[in-house]
């Protein structure tokens, strides 16, 4: 049951905790705790053993004062693939900050987090953090596609403030630390930063070998509607896209996901059906 808990001035406090474990030959959702408007649809199995699931945020939009917490835990030998059916939206705020905190623990297991894009309306105030803890031989593929304003209707992101923090650890050692602040015009148009482009996106995958990096490099050349690059830092493949099309960012990431998935986690890529809709 989804229990809505509006808490006065502080907005919606929503939380979704999921724990996946391996039972004989398939991964099951062993524990689920939800509070407020965050939910998960019944898992399904389009490929052998791997647990696919959609994370839902029924209100669809986040306003100042709201906080979303996503905690995913994947236990040894389990393999979960999570995605979202639609874009997340952060609406304009009169002053209160909205927050989204993602915490993933992957313990000798595999997690794929392949959500739709996150859109920030003009004057949004938000902080988004992703903290990924990998243990042992854990594998992870995840991406985030962000869009400031809605370029398709010619809307630009008037100065709001959004802070993005990503931290990826293996056995408590930081492999990748990333903090991006978009606070006003100077950050939107910074020459070595966003260059006035509304869409920026990052794909992370690990473990990845230097040979696999070489197969990904050509995908990043000559990308339409933007610029992309790939590097391999501390065993983490990092693909970045900067441009004006969320569709292009997704196309690029899905192509790369299909190319690298067998090497990263031993599974041929099976595109979630929801991507075709």
């Amino acid at each position, binding site marked *: 049951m989804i229990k809505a808990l509006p808490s006065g001035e502080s907005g919606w406090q929503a939380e979704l905790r999921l724990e996946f474990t391996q039972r004989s030959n398939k991964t099951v959702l062993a524990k689920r705790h939800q509070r407020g408007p965050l939910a998960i649809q019944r898992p399904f199995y389009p490929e052998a053993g791997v647990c696919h699931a959609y994370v839902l945020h029924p209100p669809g939009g986040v306003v100042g004062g709201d906080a979303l917490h996503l905690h995913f835990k994947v236990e040894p030998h389990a393999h979960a693939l999570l995605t979202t059916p639609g874009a997340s939206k952060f609406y304009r705020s009169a002053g209160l900050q909205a927050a989204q905190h993602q915490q993933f623990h992957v313990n000798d297991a595999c997690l794929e987090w392949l959500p739709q894009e996150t859109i920030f309306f003009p004057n949004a105030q938000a902080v988004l953090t992703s903290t990924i803890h990998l243990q042992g031989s854990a594998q992870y593929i995840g991406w985030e596609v962000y869009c400031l304003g809605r370029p398709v209707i010619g809307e630009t992101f008037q100065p709001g403030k959004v802070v993005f923090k990503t931290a990826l650890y293996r056995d408590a050692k930081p492999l990748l630390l990333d903090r991006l602040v978009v606070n006003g015009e100077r950050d939107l148009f910074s020459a070595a930063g966003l260059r006035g482009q509304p869409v920026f996106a990052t794909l992370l995958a690990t473990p990845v070998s230097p040979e696999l990096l070489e197969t990904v490099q050509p995908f*990043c050349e000559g990308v339409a509607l933007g610029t992309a690059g790939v590097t391999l830092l501390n065993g983490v493949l990092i693909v*970045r896209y900067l441009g004006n099309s969320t569709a292009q960012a997704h196309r690029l990431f899905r192509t790369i996901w299909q190319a690298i998935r067998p090497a990263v986690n031993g599974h041929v890529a099976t595109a979630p059906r929801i991507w075709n809709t």
Partner: protein
Amino acid sequence: MITNLALVRLLHLVSPSLPIGSFTYSQGIEWAVEAAWIKNPHDLRAWLESQLHSGMIYLDVPILQRLYHSLGADDIIVAGAWITVLLASRETYELQLEEKNRGRALSDLLIALDIPRAATWKPLIAQSQAAGFALAALHWNIPVEQAAYGYVWSWLENLVLSAVKIIPLGQTQGQKLLEQLSPLVAEVVEQGLQVADEDIGAASFALAIASSRHESQYTRLFRS
């Protein structure tokens, strides 16, 4: 206050003649020029300003400051943790490699100059040029604030000199740019020394892409 001798030491530490190969790195500028992101002095200035406003304030200066204080207190555990943070915050393989390569070259130089602890702490400071810089500043009694001025200035000067060759620009145009950006160095250091632990970190998206693409750039003269 900085003593006259310490000032001379600082000039030595930031000299482009220091044999640590600073002039061989472009930090993505070589690709940014090929991609026509940087075509003229105006573009170059905007590129450097944007890094001064983000990476220098929120990453380099605060970590240099923390390395200075932890090494000064002989606390190599804390210093090592900050070096790990710095290396994980470098956005690409090449930028991280530059941090390490310059660190190794600088640590070799500090050992050759008989700077105390440079040899015993080599495994630590050889991973990061910021750490070697902090150790040299401590040994030569350069206050942390002035050390940070020197660090930012030397970063700026090296990149301008590289860019002048790549774009190419006239030597005078490069010097003009340095003259124009100098006041910003003071601002960056002042702000960078105030940054709290939880605000450390800065990603420059276009820089990261330029540096990533430089890793497989067909014709390149610079190491980053």
